[in-house]
Structure formats: structure tokens, C-alpha cells
């Protein structure tokens, strides 16, 4: 019995849910501040700034200082949400993320906006396909990738209450709702099993979740019943659900809008090889992208309904 939602036609920019939730939290908690790098617009903070002009700390185009300032604000009792395009937050300020936030254990919420290939034609300098790989290697940092607005809101609320450092990957590329009617939209550290299946498991995160659900439809038409997992918490990974997928479906396809080395696919593979080895296919971005829109590039790299279904069919063949 499949409880999944049919792919919806309406799509959403998760930055909207992010900003609305942040404002709601700020109204209730004077400790909430936004820290950004000249990114009020691109982080969708305009309404926040209008309501809380003193609680936006815009340090200008200076990402290393931005993350250090967030650590200092946390030291001073605030709960900073650092809002910055993911390539620059995680690339430019990686040592600050490691040392100032994770190693210090400061309760700072690092919000990587517009990740993956959101910036399409702007090219690989502005793509953030390495962020999950880099951040997975940092101890004491939760890494969360919401797949739709409902998960985004729930993840932001979790991060606010977490009392420890976290990274939230907040999508710009519009996605349909995938968590409606599925009970709790986001439980930290828990995968959402969106579709039952015994033949193969599609393990997806972020923008790829709705596409995995679409691929499962096509696979069902071919007689392959695919389980679909939405992994919103990359660190810590829901190992029990991965092990169950390996044992019960015998094959796993991972799908992520990022490099495979070190990302979701690698995280799942690490669990599978030491618990219940099964064949896997790891789908992701193979390298620096050519020029193209986000939608074009996702199709170009086979990160779509047809590409995911083909990989799963091949695995079962």
C-alpha cells in the first residue's frame, strides 16, 4: 500500500517558508538575530529586516567575519541565523564553520541559501555542490536538507530549539510539497518513508525527493515497486532506515543535487558496506557544470524522473 502523495503541480521556493518561520520565531524570542553578508534580498530577509531592523547584522561582503561574528553573538546569549548563499558560507568560511561554530559548540544556525545548482547559468563558482561533503566531515555539526516548505518550517523550528550548531540547506529551486499527509514533516535524525516498496529503495534528499517519487511511479508501471526515503537529516543519518532498506529491498539508489563523493550517497554507502552490503547506484552532479538553467542542468545530469528510474531499472536488471 502506498501512502505517497501524487506529484503536485504547485511548486515552492523554500526560502519563503524559511523567512516566514524565522519572523515567527523572532517575534517570540528576542534572542533570534539574522546575520548576513549583504544578502538581505537573496536570503529573503527583507520582511525580517523591516520588522526587526536592529536584529539584522549585515557585515557586508565578508563571510569569514560573518561566521565569526555569529559565534560572538552566540557567546553573548543570542541565537544567530547566518543567512548566506551556500557556496560562500561553506566554501569561503569553512574553517570558521569548523572552528568557531562546531568546535566551540555554539548554538548557531548556518543557513546555506540557494544551494546545489540553484544559480544555474551563473556557473560553478556559484554552485554549491560540495557543501554536504565538506560539512559531513565536521564533527558536532548537524546537517539538514529540507525537501519542501513544510519540512523547511519544521527544520527551522528544530534548529532554533536545538541548543547546538546546525547547518540548514535552504532551497531556492522550486519544489512541490512532498510531506503533506505524511504525519510529522520533519523529525531530526529520522528519514521519512514516503512510499513503500520491496524491490529497490530510492534514497533522496532536498530537490530530488519529488523526482524520486515520480520515478517510483514509472518503476511501478514496469512492475518494480520502489521504496522512497526522504533523508532530510544527512548528519546524523537514520542508519536503521538505511539498513532496513538494504535488507528488505536488496538495492539502493541515492539521489542528490551535489557531488557524490562525500555526500548523501557516500553516507548511505558507508552504512550499507558495514552492515548489509547490497548493490547501489549513486546519482549526483559529476563535476563542474556547463552553462544552463537549474532545470536544464538537473536534466543534463540525469537527476530527473527518467534518469532515476533508469538507474533503478539497471540495478534490478
Amino acid at each position, binding site marked *: 500500500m502506498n501512502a505517497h502523495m501524487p506529484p503536485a503541480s504547485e511548486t515552492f521556493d523554500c526560502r519563503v517558508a524559511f523567512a516566514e518561520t524565522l519572523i515567527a520565531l523572532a517575534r517570540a524570542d528576542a534572542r533570534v538575530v539574522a546575520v548576513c553578508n549583504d544578502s538581505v534580498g537573496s536570503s529573503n530577509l527583507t520582511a525580517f529586516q523591516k520588522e526587526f531592523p536592529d536584529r539584522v547584522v549585515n557585515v557586508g561582503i565578508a563571510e569569514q567575519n560573518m561566521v*565569526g561574528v555569529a559565534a560572538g553573538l552566540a557567546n553573548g546569549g543570542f541565537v544567530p541565523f547566518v543567512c548566506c548563499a551556500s557556496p560562500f558560507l561553506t566554501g569561503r568560511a569553512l574553517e570558521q564553520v569548523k572552528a568557531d561554530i562546531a568546535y566551540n559548540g555554539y548554538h548557531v544556525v548556518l543557513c546555506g541559501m540557494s544551494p546545489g545548482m540553484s544559480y544555474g547559468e551563473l556557473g560553478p563558482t556559484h554552485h554549491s555542490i560540495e557543501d554536504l561533503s565538506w560539512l559531513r566531515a565536521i564533527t558536532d555539526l548537524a546537517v539538514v536538507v529540507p525537501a519542501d516548505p513544510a519540512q523547511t518550517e519544521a527544520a527551522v523550528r528544530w534548529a532554533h530549539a536545538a541548543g547546538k550548531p546546525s547547518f540548514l540547506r535552504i532551497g531556492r529551486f522550486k519544489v512541490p510539497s512532498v510531506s503533506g499527509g505524511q504525519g510529522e514533516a520533519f523529525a531530526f535524525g529520522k528519514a521519512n518513508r514516503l512510499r513503500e516498496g520491496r524491490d529497490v529503495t530510492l534514497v533522496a534528499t532536498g530537490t530530488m525527493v519529488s523526482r524520486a517519487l515520480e520515478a517510483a511511479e514509472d518503476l511501478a508501471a514496469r512492475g518494480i515497486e520502489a521504496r522512497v526515503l526522504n533523508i532530510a537529516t544527512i548528519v546524523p543519518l537514520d542508519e536503521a532506515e538505511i539498513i532496513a532498506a538494504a535488507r528488505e529491498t536488496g538495492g539502493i539508489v541515492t539521489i542528490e543535487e551535489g557531488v557524490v563523493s562525500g555526500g548523501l550517497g557516500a553516507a548511505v554507502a558507508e552504512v550499507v558496506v558495514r552492515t548489509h552490503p547490497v548493490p547501489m547506484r549513486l546519482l549526483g552532479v559529476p563535476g563542474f557544470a556547463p552553462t544552463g538553467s537549474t532545470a536544464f542542468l538537473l536534466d543534463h545530469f540525469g537527476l530527473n524522473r527518467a534518469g532515476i528510474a533508469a538507474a533503478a531499472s539497471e540495478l534490478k536488471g
Partner: protein
Amino acid sequence: MTLDLTQPPLPSEIAAASRDERARRLKETANAVRRSIVRMIDAARAGHIGGDLSVTDILTTLYFGVLKLDPANPLAADRDRFILSKGHCAAALYSVLALRGFIDPALLDSFMKPLSVLNGHPNRRKVAGVEANTGPLGHGLPIAVGSAIASRLCGGGWRTFVVLGDGEMQEGSNWEAAMAAGHRGLDTLCAIVDRNRLQQGARTEDTNRLDPLPEKWAAFGWEAVEIDGHDHAALYDLFTRPRTGRPLAVIANTLKGKGVSFIEDRVEWHHKVPSADQVALALEELAR
């Protein structure tokens, strides 16, 4: 027992003392800190002795005369913040924290030993009184800027002091932070540059020139003051003067290895470990 000063002064005593008496007691305390540093590095057979000795008078003046802190409540919300950006000089910080009552002096003997809480760079999650885990250079000033913004935002009123190495000023992140603090007029913030003119491999001016350093800070919107970084009374006066509307940059001219004749101003003593004879000689010089 690494400490041999049984009755370090209380900040209230330093504040009430005459200028000469204040200088005398701070100097006596600083020398005890220096002896502790030498013993810790001798026991660990590792450490950064040159920078520890150059920053000692600054740390002693801050902790015994300036910072509003309560060792019994090290995380009090409105405490003054001190961040040692040059985290490799942890032995100096640990010695001061022990003398000031934040940590058990017996701990100092474990410096850098396996599983000791006293790592070669400080860790706030393990050592009371440490505000930030530092070590990679160019991190302390941005954190201090965040602390000063927090002080203003919540009306806490606390002051934030951060000590940077001069070589560290070659890190770009410091100039990002200096620009932000100047722009915001964060006058509860004081950055002190331990200007000993030596970095690990050579003199700063032969490596990547820093001068004119005060002018650079001033150009970023700070009030920049040059001072003798070993003059306790002058440091005290500067640190306790009224706010001016601008952040304060103190270029503290120091000698790397200050107090030990054969270490002073020698580049090879960045993290060299003294022999037994040299330890004895150093302790003798520091007892005077």
C-alpha cells in the same frame, strides 16, 4: 605545584592601589606567570615560549586589574569577555586563569599531556574562563566583534578584549572584522596587538610588512594607540579610560621572550623548548 605566588592581588586591590604600587604588584604577578609558563613548557617539552612571554604583561594587567569577571560564576551573562586570538599562547592564559582562581593550579602540570583538558590551544568546553576555542589565526577578532555587537544589542554593557599576535594581522579575516567594528563604532571593543615583531619563521617586516600598523587600524575607523606592552601602569590606564565612540586598537610593543635574556627577540625561540640548564637559568632570571 606550578604556581609560586600564593597571594595574587585582587582586582579591587589593584584598582585601589597607587599607580606605583599597582605596577609593582602587577609586575610581581606577571613574573609568577612567567615562571609558571617556563615550568609548564619544561614539563610538556612543548609550547610557544616566545609569544607566551611577550603577552604575559598584557594578560596579567587585564585579568588582575581590568576584566569584570567572577571565577565562581565564569559564565555570568554580563561578564567582560576576553578572547586570546593567538591561541598558541595558551600556557600564558592557563597560568593567568589558575592564578585568578578559574582553574585548579595543579592542572597546569598536565599541560599538553595525553587527555589533559589543557590542550595546546584553549577549549572553552573544557576550561572555565576560556571564551573561545582559538588556534587558527585570524579568528578571535571576528568573534570579539560579534560579542561587542551582542553587548550593544541586549544592553549588557560588557566590554570585549581580544589579543592578537602581530603576525596574525596578515590574515584577511582580521581586516574584515576591523572594518565592521570601525563602521559600527563598537567602543566596548578593545583589540590588543602583541607587537613583538617576530613571527614563526622570521621578522614580520621581512615576511609581509605590517607597518605602519597604527595608521592601518586608524584608517579602519579605530582609535589606535601605541604603548609599551610591558608597562603595567600604562596598560592599566589605557584599558580603564572612558569610552570614545570608537573601538580601541592597542599596538602593544613587546619583546618576544620578554624576561629571559637568551630568549628575548630571537626568532628561533618561537616554539623551541629550553634544556634543563636553560630552564634553571630562566627561572633564576625571572626570580629577580
